């Protein structure tokens, strides 16, 4: 049978597009199929209301790997990242805390709450950065497999061990603790002020179904210190034109290398013949054949819906069935007719040109989690707000603004059953607006349009099973060589010619691009060497 393409990539999210770009760059004939009318999946920008461009789901850029930006020359394809200027925490008593890019300003701010914490804060940053270097080596390469018997793998492991131990016992100990401790326990070791710890601890829970006091959340704090933009370590930013700007730049790079990209092309099923994945069937019945198929969908979609359980052995299926997705977050996007003024710090100064956290105390965050544990959305949720229109006027009409609210917790599995989310959706949106309005009294009257994404919507609209933004919990038992299943963390699957390249592969979710890059490189490597 003639093969039309070398590779078909199912899903035009940022990982699929990165994968496509790398394959096309190596001279492969590549086709990307995206079911939505815009590229980007969870990292997309759309204009649902005239003049207002929303970063629909993902809203800031921090983890995108800088070498991918270089290797694919993304700036020349329109990628521009504007750094966030501040992390702003409004407080219910009218006070607030700003952590600025300038360390001196930050120290003065923190000192208002604790002199000791102000002194320790830069030290903490240094320690975290050291540890981020430690993990980078693991993130930028396929996962080491301690269960493999191949001598090359053992040597690789020993090398990694030697590299890690070269950091010395103190860093190793910290690292070990970070992997298993809760974000709050870890921060308790450094700081005393709740007002500093609460907004810092939230980076440990984003996208997970855990609370800030749950063990295992400290590790994710590191991710905050791993972001690199233009080589500046630890920088966060907005992508110009919304987060979809990242995906569009990847798509443009892929096209420039010769890849073909089709939107509104929904894949219905993989074509499997004689134990090999030969191509895909689209919703409209069109069959497209290829040498290999790359799926950047989550494992449930890839293996159960697109391929079919019958093609895999029991052990593999058992592992996928226990793979935890459990979406826990929602997104509320608001189009407003005036600047949303925070009563504790009025004006549209630099403090709002960054991320704004509604996270007034650790107990507040923990109570938000408790509600979710028993199957309800948080009445008073953690909200991470950004107002991208302040720094990028292209996303809203003059004088008007876009307010993007990332909200936790909104569990997929509400007690009424996930299928009842549509009835609860508006109440969820109200809870978010009400909570935010406590800090921002003019907000309610200024809302022109409101867009609410619950985990149920994310599953239906962009195909994330259970609405998990990382395509699977980032808990240790689902990371590294265990992601998504033991023995299958290297982008191959048990089905011949089927590969995975999405967030459900090592090193996992977040706007990183690594799974797409590593999948492409692993595949290209397998063509060269004997396997």
């Amino acid at each position: 049978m003639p093969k039309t393409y070398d590779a078909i990539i199912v899903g035009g999210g940022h990982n699929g597009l990165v994968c496509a770009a790398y394959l096309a760059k190596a001279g492969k004939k590549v086709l990307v199929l995206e079911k939505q009318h815009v590229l980007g999946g969870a990292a997309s920008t759309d204009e649902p209301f005239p003049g207002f461009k929303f970063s629909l789901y993902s809203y800031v850029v921090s983890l995108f790997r800088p070498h991918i930006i270089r290797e694919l020359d993304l700036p020349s394809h329109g990628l521009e990242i504007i750094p966030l200027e501040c992390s702003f925490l409004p407080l219910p008593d009218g006070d607030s805390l700003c952590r600025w890019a300038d360390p001196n300003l930050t120290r003065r701010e923190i000192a208002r709450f604790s002199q000791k914490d102000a002194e320790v804060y830069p030290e903490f940053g240094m320690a975290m950065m050291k540890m981020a270097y430690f993990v980078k080596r693991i993130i930028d390469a396929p996962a080491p497999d301690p269960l493999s018997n191949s001598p090359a793998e053992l040597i690789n492991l020993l090398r990694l061990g030697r590299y890690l131990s070269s950091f010395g016992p103190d860093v190793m100990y910290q690292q070990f603790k970070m992997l298993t401790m809760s974000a709050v326990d870890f921060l308790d070791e450094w700081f005393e002020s709740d007002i500093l710890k609460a907004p810092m601890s939230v980076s440990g829970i984003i996208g997970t179904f855990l609370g800030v006091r749950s063990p295992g959340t400290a590790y994710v704090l590191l991710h905050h210190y791993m972001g690199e933009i233009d080589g500046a370590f630890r920088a966060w930013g907005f992508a110009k034109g919304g987060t979809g700007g990242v995906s569009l730049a990847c798509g443009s790079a892929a096209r420039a290398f010769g890849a073909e990209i089709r939107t509104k092309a929904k894949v219905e099923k993989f074509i499997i013949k004689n134990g090999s994945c030969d191509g895909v069937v689209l919703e409209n019945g069109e069959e497209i054949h290829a040498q290999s198929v790359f799926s950047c969908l989550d494992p449930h979609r890839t293996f159960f819906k697109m391929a079919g359980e019958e093609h895999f052995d029991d052990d593999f299926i058992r592992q996928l069935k226990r793979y935890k997705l459990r979406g826990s977050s929602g997104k509320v996007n608001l189009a407003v007719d005036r600047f949303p003024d925070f009563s504790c710090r009025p004006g549209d100064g630099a403090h709002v040109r960054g991320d704004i956290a509604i996270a007034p105390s650790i107990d507040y965050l923990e109570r938000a989690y408790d509600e979710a544990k028993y199957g309800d959305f948080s009445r008073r949720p953690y909200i991470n707000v950004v107002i991208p229109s302040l720094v990028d006027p292209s996303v809203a009409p003059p004088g008007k603004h876009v307010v993007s609210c990332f909200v936790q917790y909104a569990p997929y599995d509400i007690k009424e059953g996930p299928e009842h989310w549509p009835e609860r959706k508006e109440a969820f949106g109200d809870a978010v607006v009400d909570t935010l309005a406590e800090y921002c009294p003019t907000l309610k009257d200024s809302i022109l349009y409101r867009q609410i994404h619950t985990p149920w919507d994310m599953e239906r609209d962009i195909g994330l099973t259970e609405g998990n933004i990382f395509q699977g919990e980032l808990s240790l038992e689902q990371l590294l060589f265990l992601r998504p299943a033991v023995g299958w963390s290297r982008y191959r699957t048990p089905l011949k010619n089927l590969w995975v390249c999405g967030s459900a592969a090592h090193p996992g979710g977040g706007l990183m691009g690594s799974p797409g890059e590593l999948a492409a490189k692993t595949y290209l490597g397998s063509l060269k060497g004997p396997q």
Partner: protein
Amino acid sequence: MTNGRSSKKYDVIVIGAGHNGLTTAAFLAGRGRKVIVLEQRDVLGGLACSEEFHPGYRSPGVLHDTSSVRHGLIKSLNLASHGLSLDPEPPAIHAPVKDGNGLSLHHDAQKAAREIAKHSEHDAERYSEYRAFVDRVRGFVNGVFDESPPGLGTIDARTFWPVMKKGLGFRRLGKHDAVELFRIIPMSLADWLDEWFETDRLKTLLAAPAIRGAFVGPRSPGSAINLLLWECRKGPSVKGGPGALVTALEAAAGGAGAKIRTSARVKEIGISEGKVTGVTLDDGETIDGAVVAASVDPKTIFLKLLPVAAITEKFAQRIANYRAKGTTAKVDIALRQKIEVGGNAGSSVEYVRTGENLTQVEKAFDAVKYRLCSSTPVLDVCIPSASNRDFAPDGGSSLSVLVQYAPYDLEDGWGDRQRELLGQRVVETLADNIPGVKESVVGLRVLTPADLESHYGTSGGHPYHGDHAVDQLFVRPSPECARHTTPIGGLFLCGSGSFPGGGITCAPGALGARAILKHS
């Protein structure tokens, strides 16, 4: 030690005569060391001390379960010759349910499966597989926890081989079990138990021992490993309970020549040029010794008993950061009558665990996060009088109840009223599960975590001298003293705050003794 100037000079001074301190003393005295044990209370045993809490009624100890005691140690100390005997197998544990017969979990896997089958065929089959899994990994897991851990970042020729051997042992488990072990470490009890079973009552019964050691609920990641450790260690328990174990250890230590003193509270550990010189007691008496083995908790040792200048600020910070806030209260109840559990009149049920489902247990945990007591606590009950007449007068029963969850730092502070309220809640929860209890109460002793601290001297009132969280299990209590040695020459750890942790295992005591023999 030939230049001893007084009879008060010892080779080893052991601080604390709990089961671990006595174990250390017995081992070292048995190897010819001149040992003295100093206990601050007027009785021996610490948290394993059996005491009369109401006229005629005795508790088995604050901790009541002896099924984890390491049997190799019992043999090597020849405790049998000092009067210790074991029950042939671990006792059955009963989980009562309202309006039903409940679930009795026998230690024998087949008997247990038959009992479980009355509730769920699926779970009966899975339980057999679960026990088979535990049987397969037991040797490896106990091997890891019965020896001192390797130091972090100090892989040299001497430590390399033991690590390599463990690594090979891990691989020998086979891929399936090795992956399973790796996976369990970060998992939550709820996730792990949900993978195995569907019966709520079975899951809460199994989860009970694993939530006691740390600030966790069943849904907290990192809690599953505590269950696996408990399952792997479980074996026959000591006849007569913790008190009988303490008596045998006392006899073994004393028989080997160790001197044991009660009402001798150590005020300070003497240091000169970074080395231990001895200890000073409350009354000013000084006892000289080149080695001090401390079985009290790490915060007490390093932050209270040592002069501030003796340790570096960094190390002091690490010990201060060591998490040891207890969440367990202890209630001893004297009952006028024999009690009847699950309609099993006449049968002697010795262990009962409450808790209908893991969500209820999780809700009980939520309270303690906000420094409150659970309104519906989860109880782990031992009824020592069921099989042993020493614990209660004829016709009566003595109940030893470990209560989850009660915070160390209660929001309003612990006073008589709060203590009383806790006692009432426990009796009411018990009465829901065992009819007739409420009417039969003649005496009650409530020990809150704050009481455990003031009575037994354990910081934070933690019954295990510190959380059994993953990081504190493998590196306990800090990298400087994870292998029972400390930065101070001659000072060693031998209590529950050192590897491999709390509970009545006697393992820290034995490993502490081994470290002393090796280094001094």
